[in-house]
């Protein structure tokens, strides 16, 4: 009899952001002004647990919901009780607040242990089910890190489950396709990427839920090892509003105007493609290489920067050059010259900051390579480009960690793309990606060579592997970065930090994060955001072979079946035409997308490829290999035409690098209209044939 422990989280409702939710001064979103709801994917995970229970035919299986949060988080537990949960546990304590993913995964894992001990009576036949990620954090790190803490296998990005008499087989999303896997052992952690049928509350269960006592545990009760701010390995140093979208968002009144806009923008280029924070990065120089010690132009926050600029100016005015010779009298002079802007302690900290020239972290800048069928994933090359940049600033080398079987041949290409050293871990057991085995291999190499920075691609694989590696080597990790910069926090005694900038709260705010209490700084970076460098075949690099002891026990999952999309898909085409759920049927998809591909190919004399949203693939309109987006392929064509696609953030991330985005949708409130250049409100059946006609007539 399997039981189900379902993790749920209370999140701000980012689907309904009201006009008063933004701070008028700073422009940032005020979280407390948003309504609180259950994280949508967790609601799906709860329904998925119920679905598994039904499939297994075990009516007595228990469903236990667990959440960690402030006391008001009990609302999400009542949500679960009013649907299918039998027991609920609220983990709440001030000491648990302010946690990053490590300090969230750790206490949750300890709570799961307590649930197993006290509620499941040590029965090890259970599943931990959760949504793939939360809408506020968007990191997808907590479940794999929890699995790591519990020493359990983790199956991520699951979309379906089939009961095979004695075990469950799970269908999960992988890059370019899907895979059916089963865990070799129980218990197992499962994260749900999509389950279409969240449960409805019943009247009776809702009344019962409102009267039922919750089990409430404090930090003392679970005795976790990493909690709260202190147990966290990253900290947010700045929150700011996202830059104004550079998309034009222009509504056109029909197919004729749309055809004209497509022709013109394709010829001239939009010239406004979003390159993210990356483009603004100034070349960082280590303090030791700067002309003047008073030169502190790379401080982490605007406040630190302003303070140092003021102090340096005052020191120059007062003619002070030797920091060591500043006595009490000189200090007083400085303080009054600065108009008492600083406390004495601040001044002391800043003065000792001048003396720092050594970076806080040491070692190479690493990239963990992703590959399949002997081909390096394009996102890896984007990372080696970025790593080259960072390593040059820090005056260190770029290393690439390449784990797999018969993979050494890829080293050459990686060196051409910017690597100095390629650390190759070859093993037959690494022939296909198994999270546990790969985690062991990569973590072993990291713990031997201790790079100061490790970058992973934010692909399904990278988002799975990175949290497990980082947790096992006790380092902080930031997910889905769109900006990576080297900065100093001299006042706090840190030089050459990696500042990791990422969107949060569904893209409504940006956060800059630093790693702390860690030997290495780790981040996953969004594919398509960093720029790869021109391959240079003449570059010289070294291959370092690293041996890791692996046994069959390190393989956690049995792969039943892998389905990579059939046929060749050329996502490097200049034009991609994608269809979404709004296509209604496979017939419509094939006809309309096909015709428009042909029409555009002729009119623009360009290569055109068909794409699809995740929803369209789920509906069976086309094969998985055509899926565009965060869980599919990230693309950057000159022209992207989205037909009947709503514009979910996961999809839009995958097309961020496109020059011109054109959308057709019958819903005038479709989010895609705020993230595209040109759009027409109308049904695809009606608009597309007319558009093709207009393209033909020029």
């Amino acid at each position, binding site marked *: 009899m399997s039981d189900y422990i379902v993790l749920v989280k209370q999140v701000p409702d980012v689907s*309904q952001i*009201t006009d008063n939710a933004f701070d008028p001064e700073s422009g940032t979103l005020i979280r407390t002004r948003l309504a609180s709801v259950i994280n949508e994917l967790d609601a799906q995970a709860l329904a998925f647990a119920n679905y598994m229970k039904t499939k297994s035919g075990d009516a007595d299986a228990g469903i236990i919901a667990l959440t960690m949060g402030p006391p008001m988080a009990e609302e999400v537990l009542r949500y679960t009780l009013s649907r299918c949960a*039998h027991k609920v546990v609220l983990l709440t304590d001030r000491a648990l607040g302010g946690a990053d993913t490590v300090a969230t995964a750790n206490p949750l894992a300890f709570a799961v242990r307590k649930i197993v001990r006290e509620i499941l009576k040590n029965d090890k036949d259970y599943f931990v089910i959760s949504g793939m990620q939360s809408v506020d954090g968007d990191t997808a790190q907590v479940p794999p890190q929890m699995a790591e803490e519990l020493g359990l296998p983790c199956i991520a990005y699951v979309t379906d489950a089939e009961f095979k008499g004695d075990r469950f087989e799970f269908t999960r999303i992988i890059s370019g396709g899907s895979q059916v896997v089963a865990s070799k052992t129980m218990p197992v952690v499962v994260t749900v990427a999509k389950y279409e049928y969240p449960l*409805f509350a019943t*009247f*009776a*269960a*809702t009344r019962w839920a*409102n009267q039922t006592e919750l089990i409430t545990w404090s930090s003392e009760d679970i005795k976790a090892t990493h909690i709260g701010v202190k147990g966290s390995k990253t900290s947010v140093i700045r929150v700011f509003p996202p830059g104004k979208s550079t998309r034009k968002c222009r509504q056109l009144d029909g197919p004729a105007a749309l055809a004209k806009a497509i022709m013109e923008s394709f010829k001239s280029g939009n010239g406004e493609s979003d390159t993210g924070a990356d483009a603004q990065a100034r070349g960082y120089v280590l303090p030791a290489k700067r002309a003047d010690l008073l030169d502190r132009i790379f401080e982490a926050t605007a406040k630190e920067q302003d303070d140092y600029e003021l102090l340096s100016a005052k020191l120059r005015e007062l003619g002070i050059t030797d920091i060591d010779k500043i006595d009490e009298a000189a200090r007083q002079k400085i303080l009054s010259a600065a108009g008492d802007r600083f406390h004495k302690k601040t001044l002391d900290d800043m003065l000792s900051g001048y003396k720092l020239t050594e970076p806080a972290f040491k070692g190479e800048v690493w990239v963990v390579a992703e590959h399949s069928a002997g081909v390096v994933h394009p996102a890896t090359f984007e990372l080696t480009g970025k790593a080259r940049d960072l390593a040059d600033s820090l005056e260190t080398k770029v290393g690439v960690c390449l784990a797999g079987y018969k993979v050494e041949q890829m080293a050459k290409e990686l060196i051409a793309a910017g690597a100095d050293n390629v650390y190759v871990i070859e093993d037959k057991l690494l022939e296909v990606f198994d999270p546990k085995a790969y985690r062991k291999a990569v973590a072993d190499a990291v713990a031997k060579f201790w790079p100061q920075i490790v970058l992973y691609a934010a692909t399904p694989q990278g988002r799975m592997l990175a949290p497990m590696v980082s947790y096992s080597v006790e380092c902080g990790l930031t997910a889905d970065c769109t900006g990576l910069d080297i900065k100093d926090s001299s006042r706090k005694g840190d030089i050459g930090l990696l500042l990791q900038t990422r969107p949060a709260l569904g893209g409504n705010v940006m956060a800059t994060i630093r790693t702390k209490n860690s030997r290495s700084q780790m981040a996953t970076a969004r594919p398509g955001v960093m720029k790869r460098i021109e391959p240079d075949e003449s570059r010289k690099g070294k291959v370092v072979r690293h041996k890791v002891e692996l046994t069959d026990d390190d393989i956690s999952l049995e792969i039943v079946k892998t389905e990579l999309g059939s046929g060749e898909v050329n996502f490097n085409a200049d034009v991609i035409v994608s269809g979404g759920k709004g296509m209604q049927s496979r017939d419509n998809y094939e006809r309309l997308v096909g015709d428009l591909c042909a029409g555009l190919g002729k009119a623009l004399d360009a290569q055109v490829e068909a794409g699809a949203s995740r929803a369209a693939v789920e509906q069976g309109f086309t094969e998985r290999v055509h899926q565009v987006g965060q869980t599919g392929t990230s693309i950057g064509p000159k022209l992207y035409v989205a037909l009947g696609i709503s514009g979910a953030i996961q999809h839009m991330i995958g097309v961020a690098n496109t020059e011109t985005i054109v959308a057709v949708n019958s819903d005038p409130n479709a989010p895609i209209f705020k993230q595209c250049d040109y759009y027409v409100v109308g049904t695809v059946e009606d608009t597309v044939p007319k558009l093709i006609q207009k393209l033909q007539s020029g």
Partner: protein
Amino acid sequence: MPSNKDFNKVSVLVVGAGPAGLATAIQLKTLKPDIDVCVIEKALDLGNHNLSGAVLEPEPFHTLMNAAAPGWRDSEPAKDILANVIDKDDIMFLLGRKLAFNIFFAMKLGKALGLGFGQMIHKGDYSVSISKLTKWMAGIAKCMGAEVLTGFAAQEIMVDHSGRATAVKLVDQGLDKEGNKQPNYVEGELIQADFVVLAEGCDGLLTEQFIEKVQLKRQRPQLYSVGVKELIAVSPEQYAKFTSGRVVHAMGYPIWTPVFGPGMFGGGIVYAGAKDHLSVGMIVGADWKYCDFNVQDALTNFKNHKFVNQFIEGGTVVEAGVKMIPEGGYYAIPRDPETGAIGKANVMILGDSAGFVNMLKIKGLHNAIDSGMQAAKAIAESLEQPETAAQKYTDSIDASNVAKEMKSARSFRHVIAKFGPLQGMPLSVFGGLLPQFKVEPDYQAMTVANYRLKPNQNFDKDTFTAVAATEHREEEPSHLTIRDRTICRTKCTPIFNSPCITFCPAGVYETIHDEVKPANPSNCLHCKTCQRKCPFDNIRWTVPEGGGGPRYKRM
């Protein structure tokens, strides 16, 4: 899960968490703290389906609160929600797009002479957000131990042979567009109750069903108005110029102008809201005769009138919504033909569901609250004999201020419906002196005439529904049905050019492949205008899954 107690049984079931239903719960808990009372509401959150001007006449509310929550006046919500006390009461007559005359003196004169329309004076009342008021009242009801459950939509009322309600059935959830069961299908639960309080609001689904099932009768048909309202964020200067204690009621343009028309009943409102917000609305009698008319078009004209425009120009519409108002008055209250009960046996009909709107005051909120209190008293007095509750409730209503007011205004709206605004208004002074006469239901008023003042541009319904934040699960079956499609094709479209496409304020109806359909049911704002205004009475509204519909927060 539920084991030792049957959670599908309650003592008192209130359908609808509006002012009437919540007043019942609060008053009942005041009288009988141990009673088991459960209020169900179809909206996702409290206040989400409550829309009104709103002017609140304080009396019944104060009485309710004084008994239930002494010290309520000093609470934070009271200070926020009741901040706008009306000290300036304007009644304007608009003529053309620029002229405006203040005719408040006529109301004062009317009051002095004891004429009916003298009741339309609001000084000392509150200008409130009814969404907020409802949410606040629900909080108080919950504090007192009542259960208030949102997201549960009632679909049917079960009645035995004696006319006693045995249960209320909730809507089935988890069906797909074609009505097939999805994996998360839940059959609508049956809730058994000793007492059923129908406080659904205007044109209530269960109320109308119940009237049909137990053969309650209205002496004259219920008449409706359609009110659209926008909450507009204006500049501090505009708000200061309008002042925070002011309400404006306007007559005339753009729905009634002398000689050449148009000739419709109703008017515009501008009410002061919270800081730098004004409520601007247009209410039009649903017996309009123009087949291309949409109340939102009248709202556009009203907003562009020089008098209104000065206060809102450059402002942003932050919320918007629509509802119907039952205006039939005293003779349209559904009653048992034998006993006169407003309801039957253990079922009571309250507030807008009963039609307790005083058309001389154009207010019903105070009567809704009052009726809720009377229902609570009736229940408290008939715990041993639930089947006597409806009669006790009715006796109490008939002896109360609710009935007194309703009687004083008994013929006002019907006279205008019969004789038109020009002759009807003056005639209404004679109120109840006129003999009873026959009035047609609203839908029969449609003609092929056009609205002469139609604005050049179509109203932006998309933005309107977006700020109303309406949402339904896209995959659920349509909750709107066209009874006979051939009527649309052979009669309505050729004669009237499908008025539903125009008058539906949410743009639900569209012609697709030459067929008129409720193509976008997920945009529906639950106003039910289509059900009452389709010229062939060919549309039916039922409840969608719980949680669907608009999400008003400050309406």
